[in-house]
């Protein structure tokens, strides 16, 4: 599960920064059929979390109501230099993660 992250590389201390993530995932609704008529099992990213230097700053619980290749954009206050860690898990139990460094001056 590849992901693309949008994050300013540098920020002022106390600045509210915008964080974006696009995760490659089909978000199968469970209503789609294969060519041979078999039902494609439901498989969506159920939970997603973003930790800033180990502290959770954002969490999302999702359903098939979120479009395929989920895109999420949220905010966080730039406190210290360090790392933002993103992690998610889908219905099939597959886990994904990504991390991005941030420099706070």
């Amino acid at each position, binding site marked *: 599960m590849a992901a693309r992250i949008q994050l300013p590389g540098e920020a002022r201390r106390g600045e509210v920064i915008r964080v974006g993530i696009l995760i490659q995932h089909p978000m199968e*609704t469970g*209503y*789609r059929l294969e060519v041979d008529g078999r039902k494609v099992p439901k498989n969506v990213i159920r939970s997603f979390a973003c930790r800033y230097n180990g502290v959770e700053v*954002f969490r999302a619980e999702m359903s*098939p109501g*979120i479009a395929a290749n989920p895109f999420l*954009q*949220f905010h*966080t206050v730039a*406190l210290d230099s360090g790392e933002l860690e993103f992690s998610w898990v889908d219905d099939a139990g597959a886990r994904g993660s990504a991390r991005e460094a941030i420099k706070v001056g």
Partner: protein
Amino acid sequence: MRRRSFLIALSGLAFGARAADPLLDPVTKGAPVTRGRVKLEMPLLADNGNSVSMRVSVESPMSEADHVRAIHLISERNPEARMASFHLGPRAGSAEITSRVRLAGSQRVVALAEMSDGSFWMDSANVVVTLSACVDELGG
């Protein structure tokens, strides 16, 4: 006796419908919901229900004492009414979230914000979907 219990049940039903929204009850547990402070932005017309842009923002200082605890997105017609729940806190700085949703047909979408003081605020958007996300394939 049977008729009386039926009438009681009926009046309860009528009262319940007036007092709360069955769509929001699973989240609010019957707590009052006020319209305002929340802004849900979605297109009026979506060509394709598989991917509809959505932006929700809540007016809040996002301080330790007064912040948005969660924002819930609720659909009127999707098979799963709770589309997503976003959990935030004072570390978010700003209660604004952008994403893309799936809509199984034209409907009203509700954004429900849960504040740190326990109060609920909401906004809704009506979206007309020309081609809905495929849920009809299996007959509903």
